[in-house]
């Protein structure tokens, strides 16, 4: 195997001005947490401390909700829809202006390659604000009745895999539809949300429209259970999603949930193999596999298995794992020690249950959290690595003989977030896309996202959609 040597091409962090401590963003100002507690956020690529971040307790969450309620009643709902939209346009523009800063900070805090934060996360986050800005004064055309109403105060809890992008997915539609927001970023990746708070200040967004409370699961729980929150929007694990559904079962709170997945990526015998191999790699190794819709179950038609696997292994050997700030890096750091141990434990179950592990030769850095790109072959439907979400760079490979068998295996999961189809035959693609029980189907592509494209899952992958016209209904009260 040819070993290409690349000189390091490090993105500079000089653009950042990171404070030693960050406070909570409530009512347009940074305030001390009533808990008086702070927690560290670290760079998962080298375990160095980035900064100290305020820990929001129940009283802090209460302050944030009060600020959001006050803003909803006194300023945000009084503003005309067109003017509301202009604030979102402003935010979109400032995100574009400060794109490099956001990209570098995201990579530091999350561990994802700078190539991805620069080319995917940040531009898409800006696009989400730009797209939703234009919806603000057109909501009567959204198919939810002539005068759809916002919920009021929305509590939003987001994960660590796409910190800024998930913020944008949540905040942009909520504001466009006239709600105010209390957002809780993930414990391990609070930094870009706090930088976003500065963007809100620069945009002169009315105080209290966006409030950001950093903390852990307990902070999120205070938000979910706060009696003055009208709606909860959550992205994260299915188990926490179910706990939220239980917590609000006796309330009037509206809920949308974006949860886990175990997507099948189906390769039919007539697929264009080279493109497919690129798609498989993008499907599972994009963002270290920390993607709820990752193509983590590869289903290959049996007669082309050898060719696909050979080419896949050759391609995997050229994946560069290492410093996320290096522009050549393909696979960055695992986000946390906790996530690394989960990936390690689930992968070990693959070995124990009899699947065959393969990884290319690659040197992992000594500090930080790392996992090599890995595939398991000889996986059966019953294996844990075929059923549970690994949320890491680990691919389970299964085979099938007939298209019907592919569909049955693909749908044999409680999840239903996404699926992939690789085939050069149009009618087969359309047939398979109809049969698959998943909310997003990528045919001859994978892991594509766009603010205009509704995203969300069937079955235990969640409630509701984000993005597109369909995503608006999550934040508006429609007729039914």
């Amino acid at each position, binding site marked *: 195997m040819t070993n290409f040597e690349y000189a390091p091409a490090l993105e500079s962090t000089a653009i950042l001005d990171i404070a030693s401590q960050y406070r909570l963003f409530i009512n347009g100002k940074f305030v001390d947490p009533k808990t008086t507690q702070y927690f560290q956020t670290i760079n998962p690529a080298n375990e160095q401390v980035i900064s100290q971040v305020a820990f929001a307790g129940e009283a802090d969450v209460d302050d944030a909700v009060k600020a959001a309620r006050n803003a909803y009643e006194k300023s945000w709902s009084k503003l005309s829809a067109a003017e509301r939209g202009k604030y979102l346009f402003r935010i979109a523009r400032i995100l574009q202006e400060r794109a490099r800063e956001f990209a570098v900070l995201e990579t530091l805090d999350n561990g994802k390659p700078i190539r991805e934060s620069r080319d995917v996360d940040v531009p898409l986050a800006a*696009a989400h604000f730009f797209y939703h800005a234009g919806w603000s004064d057109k909501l009567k055309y959204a*198919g939810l009745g002539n005068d759809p109403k916002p919920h009021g105060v929305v509590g939003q809890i987001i994960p660590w895999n796409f910190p800024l992008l998930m913020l944008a997915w949540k905040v942009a539609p909520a504001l466009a539809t006239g709600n105010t927001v209390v957002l809780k970023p993930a414990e391990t990746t609070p930094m870009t949300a706090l930088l976003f708070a500065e963007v809100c200040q620069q945009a002169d967004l009315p105080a209290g429209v966006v409030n950001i409370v950093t903390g852990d699961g307990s902070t999120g729980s205070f938000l979910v259970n706060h009696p003055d929150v009208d709606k909860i929007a959550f992205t994260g694990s*299915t188990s926490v*999603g*179910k*706990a939220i*559904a*239980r917590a609000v*079962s*006796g309330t009037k709170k509206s809920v949308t*949930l974006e*949860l886990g997945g175990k997507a099948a990526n189906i390769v039919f015998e007539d697929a264009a193999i080279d493109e497919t191999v690129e798609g498989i790699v993008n499907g599972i190794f994009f963002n270290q596999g920390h993607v709820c819709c990752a193509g983590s179950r590869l289903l290959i038609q049996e007669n082309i298995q050898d060719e696909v696997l050979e080419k896949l292994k050759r391609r995997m050997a050229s994946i560069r794992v290492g410093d996320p700030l290096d522009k050549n890096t393909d696979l960055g750091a695992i986000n946390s020690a906790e996530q690394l141990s989960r990936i390690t434990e689930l992968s070990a179950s693959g070995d124990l249950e009899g699947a065959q592990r393969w990884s290319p030769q690659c040197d992992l850095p000594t500090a930080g959290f790392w996992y090599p790109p890995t595939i398991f072959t000889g996986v059966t439907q019953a294996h844990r690595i075929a059923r549970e979400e690994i949320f890491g760079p680990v691919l389970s490979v299964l085979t099938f003989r007939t298209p019907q068998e592919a569909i049955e295996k693909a749908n044999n999961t*409680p999840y239903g977030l996404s699926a992939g189809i690789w085939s050069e035959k149009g009618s087969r*693609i359309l047939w398979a*896309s*109809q049969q698959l029980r*998943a*909310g*997003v*189907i*990528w*045919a*001859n*592509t994978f892991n*594509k996202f*766009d603010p*205009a*494209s*509704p*995203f*969300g899952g*069937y*079955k*235990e992958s*969640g*409630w509701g*959609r984000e993005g*597109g*016209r*369909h995503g608006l209904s999550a934040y508006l009260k*429609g*007729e*039914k």
Partner: protein
Amino acid sequence: MRVDVKKTYKLYIGGAFPRSESGRVYELKDSKGEFLANPCQASRKDFRDAVVSARSAVTGWNKATAYNRGQILYRVAEILEGRTFQFAEEIVAMEGVNFKEAKAQVEAAIDCWVWYAGWCDKIASVSGSTNSVSGPYYNFTVPENLGVVTVFADQKSSLLGLVAGLAAVLAGGNTAIVIASEKYPLSAITLSEVLATSDVPAGVVNILTGYSAELAPWVGAHMDVDGIDVSGLSKKTEEEVRLAGAENLKRIHRFNQFQSLGRIQAFMENKTVWHPIGV
């Protein structure tokens, strides 16, 4: 004097009319407190049987074209119309309204059914979309059936609320298990006779009579139920259903309008498909 031939009111599961496996019935009184009938008091096992039947009917019901489903549902309205007097007489007995009012409810229910029947082949145009994504991809969103939906029929009307709940679920391509109104169950059973003699495939609709609050926890907890219309439940029972339903994240909704697009959309999933554009 001729002695009336009275009807035994049974359940409707998988196209057949079984009694409850539990052997239980409950005494139904008319509006004046006189004995009216002994409808079945369906059990957990009856409900589970109904789910098996509804699940097995999902694929077939969705293999039919939307146009065909629309015709099948319209056919139900035709047969309903011919039974107007029978439904009206049952409504008079149960609700205590006069015949004119009862007939008006039957007619409203038939019109409601026709309204939903017409949605089958239009919902995708109205509820779906093509999406302008920033790149060379064709991207569209289509609504699809959710699967198996349990409908707790409205308790306040005999036929109209029942029809609104059921027809909306069927128009979206789902199969249904209806838990009839406790006080007014006869319309549901007579409706099942209509369904059995129409072109609706066996299992697409299953109808149980009995105590909603007794069945509700089993409905909430059943892992092969995808959605629940809780319009016919008390708030307290609804909460129990929501709590149990969280285990597989059932789609649970309460409705306050008989005819609304939102009722259909609530029990549909939206699927978005991407494909590259290129030569």
